[in-house]
């Protein structure tokens, strides 16, 4: 039973001034990655990571269908994202627009591609913004969240010492 799970690591690159590419390998066949990526009950369990609790995930999985995720961030405030699917190829490819509702002018196009080799899946998520400023704001937001997490851990650690 003691299977060693070869955990992947996310790699982020900036292929162009307006793009972000996130690559990650998963120890599962791609139809399961696709399922976890598109099923509301499952999305709620992973999306947002340590940044908060995903309280709602709506998915209308068809071209022209809409999606919307809501998260209550650790600070207590609510953040929401929504968009529309532009391409749906089950288990392989999923493209959609994405709008952060706190910055509604900055819509991005997300393209998820899944390729499977020997039961493992390589996920590529390409985020295309309309201008560099929005791309940079996107990364800055993620970076601040990452720093906030570190601060939270630091605070927990400090509290446990008190």
């Amino acid at each position, binding site marked *: 039973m003691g299977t060693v799970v070869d955990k992947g690591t996310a790699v982020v690159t900036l292929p162009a001034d307006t793009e972000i590419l996130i690559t990650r390998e998963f120890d599962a066949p791609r139809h399961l990655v696709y399922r976890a990526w598109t099923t509301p009950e499952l999305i709620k369990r992973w999306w947002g990571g340590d940044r908060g609790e995903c309280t709602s995930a709506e998915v209308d999985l068809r071209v022209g269908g809409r999606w919307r995720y809501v998260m209550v961030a650790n600070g207590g405030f609510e953040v929401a994202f929504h968009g529309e699917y532009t391409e749906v190829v089950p288990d392989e490819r999923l493209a959609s627009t994405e709008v952060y509702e706190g910055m509604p002018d900055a819509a991005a196009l997300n393209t998820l591609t899944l390729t499977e080799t020997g039961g493992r899946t390589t996920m590529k998520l390409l985020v295309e913004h309309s201008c560099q400023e929005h791309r940079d704001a996107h990364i*800055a937001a993620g970076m601040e969240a990452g720093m906030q997490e570190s601060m939270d851990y630091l605070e927990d650690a400090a509290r446990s010492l008190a």
Partner: protein
Amino acid sequence: MARAATTADAFNAVAEPARRQILDLLAAGERPVNDLVALLGVAQPQMSKHLAVLRQVGLVEVRGIGRQRWYRLNGYPLKQIHDWVTQFERSWEASFDRLDAVLAELKQAELKQAELKQAALGEDEQVPIERADEENGDGNSGR
């Protein structure tokens, strides 16, 4: 700690393709301006503007040798970009760790389902045989 959208940071400085080409050339070693102009086919005034931006954010340093101005690369400000992307990576990684756990569960469930299906198939195969036995049998065997 959002980045200011001015040319005064390394990120914007390297966003311009011509400036990246200059950095690529300087990565191989110090060069005089004339060299850069000739190699990149950029007009002198344009080249001066690019070099000024790169100097402003500290990506290149300059010194005069004779009548020539020589430029060399300073990679340190690029670390800022590296750190920026690394934080972003970390924030995604927290989600992906959770996704790993969800996937492990889905895999287990699928495996279990396959086993049950296998077992059910096994029973299905036996059922008609048992029925046939009952029909053909003498009726009182318990088997």
